[in-house]
């Protein structure tokens, strides 16, 4: 469900990208993309981040493009 427990009440998840009114997610914008990957470099699923379908789809392409250009890691070896 679109609700997560936080403290006493519930907090409704919302799409952070719709909130910022981003028209198109750009692969060069690694700072914004960085918020949607885990510290291991995985793409955060929609059920966790609350991103809407449209933006999540743009996000995945953008993140994958950024990985090709070594702006974002494919994996992080940090935890090994």
């Amino acid at each position, binding site marked *: 469900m679109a609700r997560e427990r936080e403290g006493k009440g519930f*907090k409704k998840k919302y799409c*952070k990208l719709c*909130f*910022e*009114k*981003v*028209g*198109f*997610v*750009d*692969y*060069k*914008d690694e700072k914004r993309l960085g918020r949607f990957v885990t510290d291991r470099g995985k793409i955060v699923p929609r059920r966790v981040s609350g991103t809407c379908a449209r933006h999540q789809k743009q996000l995945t392409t953008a993140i994958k*493009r950024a*990985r*090709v*250009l*070594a*702006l*974002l*890691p*494919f994996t992080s070896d940090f935890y090994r």
Partner: protein
Amino acid sequence: MTKYETTFILDPGLDEAKVNEEVDHVVQWIKGQGGEVLEVQRWGKRRLAYEIGRRRDGIYTLLLYQGPGAIVKELERRFRLNESVLRSLTVLHVPPELTQPQVDAEALAAAAEEAGDE
């Protein structure tokens, strides 16, 4: 005509003059093929998120150009043959006004957080 943007990463070991030469060479080549270079963005030397061929840094350059689609294929082939190019990526250009957020996100998010906590 379609607009393309190509970002490529050059070997960090190249000196300034060589980098300029490489970039100019590509720009001239696109012009020669009937394309038009609209913008050249140099991001300079940046840390790579992972090593490419033992290199930790790369010199990034972004080209925005328009022209016949055949340019793209040949350009990518040339990049692959060129050993000083570590990586390249060509995508269809999206106007920057679309990619920029319309709202100052951080300020609003902070405000929303506080309002939510109350």
